[in-house]
């Protein structure tokens, strides 16, 4: 039979010049995005390279940020170890708080709430996403922090036996816990909307099958929606994590920067790469500016990595669902 099959013809047209130009222009604009992203990495690395060369790997692990400047040549024991750990810690607190709240809210909106409540909450969540981060910063400092300090004290007093809530000294102001709470509020809209999106793609015929087998809402969700949407929720959580890593002004106002690693979430000492850059920027000399750009490069790589992973995870869910 294969003998009788004709050779496939190549379908080709001579494109008109206007189309060639159009496609060329649009394509080149598409690739400008790639250029920008590459340039961001390249310039930060280029400007910060001297610091990486001088400090070596200890730039990532050293907790101190001490510069000595002698006749224009400067060097020091500088590293962003404490800042990196602090960034991860605050983001982790944010994720632990925001993830259950967001997933439960998304489930409520998609499966339990009457339409008017759903519309109302969609507006609330869009509004939260539209608030500038400086607003979260001011609100966090003036409104949330006084209450959150008190909550931290209560947590420590009544649940202090639990290692997570232990502190060495009862100093609860501007702790990773409070920064994490502010970040949690900021990433709730992202995680909620991604979760809602994947939950709404859960196949309707499976949902109906579950109901026809005597399921109620929650057993249907456990059997159909959560297995389907789990990856998407993980992806949404990672997008939120990426946002939490890079947030600057909202963390700056509610976090005490201390140049030594502190893992006690309730204790008023923490680190944050982005806030650290802003804090040191004003009085930084030439070498320190380079060091801060190097720190920016590390932060850039970190968020890029998290975002790539999030993208990959979300795409996998969508492909599986279709």
């Amino acid at each position: 039979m294969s003998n009788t099959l004709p050779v496939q013809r190549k379908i080709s047209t001579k494109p008109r010049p206007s189309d060639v130009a159009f496609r060329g222009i649009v394509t080149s604009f598409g690739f400008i995005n790639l250029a920008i992203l590459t340039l961001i990495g390249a310039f930060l690395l280029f400007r910060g390279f001297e610091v990486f060369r001088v400090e070596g790997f200890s730039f990532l692990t050293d907790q101190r940020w001490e510069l000595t400047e002698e006749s224009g040549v400067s060097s020091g024991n500088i590293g962003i170890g404490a800042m990196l750990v602090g960034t991860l810690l605050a983001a982790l607190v944010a994720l632990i708080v925001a993830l259950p709240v967001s997933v439960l809210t998304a489930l409520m909106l998609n499966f339990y709430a009457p339409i008017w409540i759903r519309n109302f909450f969609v507006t609330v969540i869009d509004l939260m996403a539209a608030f500038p981060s400086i607003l979260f910063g001011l609100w966090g400092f003036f409104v949330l922090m006084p209450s959150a300090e008190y909550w931290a004290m209560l947590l420590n007093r009544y649940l202090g036996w639990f290692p997570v809530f232990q502190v060495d000294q009862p100093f609860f102001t501007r702790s990773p816990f409070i920064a994490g709470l502010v970040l949690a509020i900021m990433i709730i809209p992202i995680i909620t909307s991604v979760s809602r999106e994947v939950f709404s793609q859960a196949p309707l015929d499976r949902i109906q099958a579950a109901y026809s087998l005597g399921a109620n809402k929650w057993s249907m969700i456990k059997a159909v929606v959560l297995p389907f949407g789990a990856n998407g929720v993980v992806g949404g959580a990672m997008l939120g994590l990426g946002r939490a890593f890079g947030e600057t002004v909202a963390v700056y106002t509610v976090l005490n920067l201390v140049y030594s690693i502190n893992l006690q979430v309730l204790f008023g000492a923490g680190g944050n790469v982005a806030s650290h850059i802003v804090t040191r920027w004003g009085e930084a000399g030439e070498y320190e500016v380079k060091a801060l750009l190097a720190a920016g490069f590390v932060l850039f790589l970190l968020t890029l990595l998290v975002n790539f992973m999030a993208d990959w995870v979300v795409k996998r869910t969508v492909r599986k669902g279709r």
Partner: protein
Amino acid sequence: MATTQAIGAIPAPTKPWVKRPLQRVPSLALGVTALLLAGLIVEVTPLKGKLGYFIVFVPLVTTLQYLLARMRASRKVAEDVLVSSLMWTAAFFVFLPTASILATTVTKGLQGLRFSIFTDTMVSASFTDPIEMGGLLHALLGTAYLILLSVIISVPLGILTALYLTEIKGPGSGFIQFIVQAMSGVPSVIAGLFVFSAVILTTPIKASSLTGSFALAILMVPTVTRTSQEVLVLIPNDLREAGLALGATQWKTVALVVVPAARSGLITAVILGVARIAGETAPLLFVLGGTDALNQNPFNGFNSGLPLYIWKGFLIGLPESVQRAWTGILVLLILVLVLFTIARIFGPKKG
């Protein structure tokens, strides 16, 4: 009911599956009981304050609902009640901060809102002076410049990228989609650092509204691209094929058919992009310079912006300066909310 019905008459539609008010009485009564119990517990134990009521009431009402359902029905029903109760609590935690943020901004911001702040700058007043002196005109103009220049830079880039992803669908479009996704995750502080190292350190250009808008445009492009893309994929393929079948080139089809059909959606994309960057603070700390005077030249000299004005007021930390910050925030929030509302009204209606 059936016997009294005339033959052929259509009965009134009902929804037997909707709970009637009477069926809600037990859970309402239960809520009130929990409230009273919570009050009692707070009175007799060392727990005090709003927080005390809250941390007693929420678990109490949840447990009581669960037990009631467990008594009246199966474990399956009770579990559903428990989980839905948790969901409503979670939603409350989403609503509470939003309401608090809005209320705080309005109450604190209104105290400093007067007409004079829109006509005066800080050049002859200090942040610690009474609020009657000085104003934020310079910051408002700076933000206007920033928005205008960012739009000019990022809108062509964003929309053409969206066209590349939806119309050309070239071999690289999957990859570019990936890049756009990654760009939307670039922290704002990084955009500022990048423009500082690539423009201010490398070229003779000094900080101005222009350099500020470079940084903001980087943050705006992914938003414009992704929203435009959402709109463009909604344009039915029939329209494109109709254009091509009439012998039009792809360029003409896109320019005369696709883009006009998506016009209002593309405008929404731009507005959402503006809303995204209008309040960005971190990048401006590196590339705008900052000033207290009115600078009418966006291409030369340090300039200001609302976020910088707010930031400065906050950092000084004295009552008058903080009042200025809150008023600035209120102005900024009104700007963002107006943009947001316009985008919602003209935006594509999602099914």
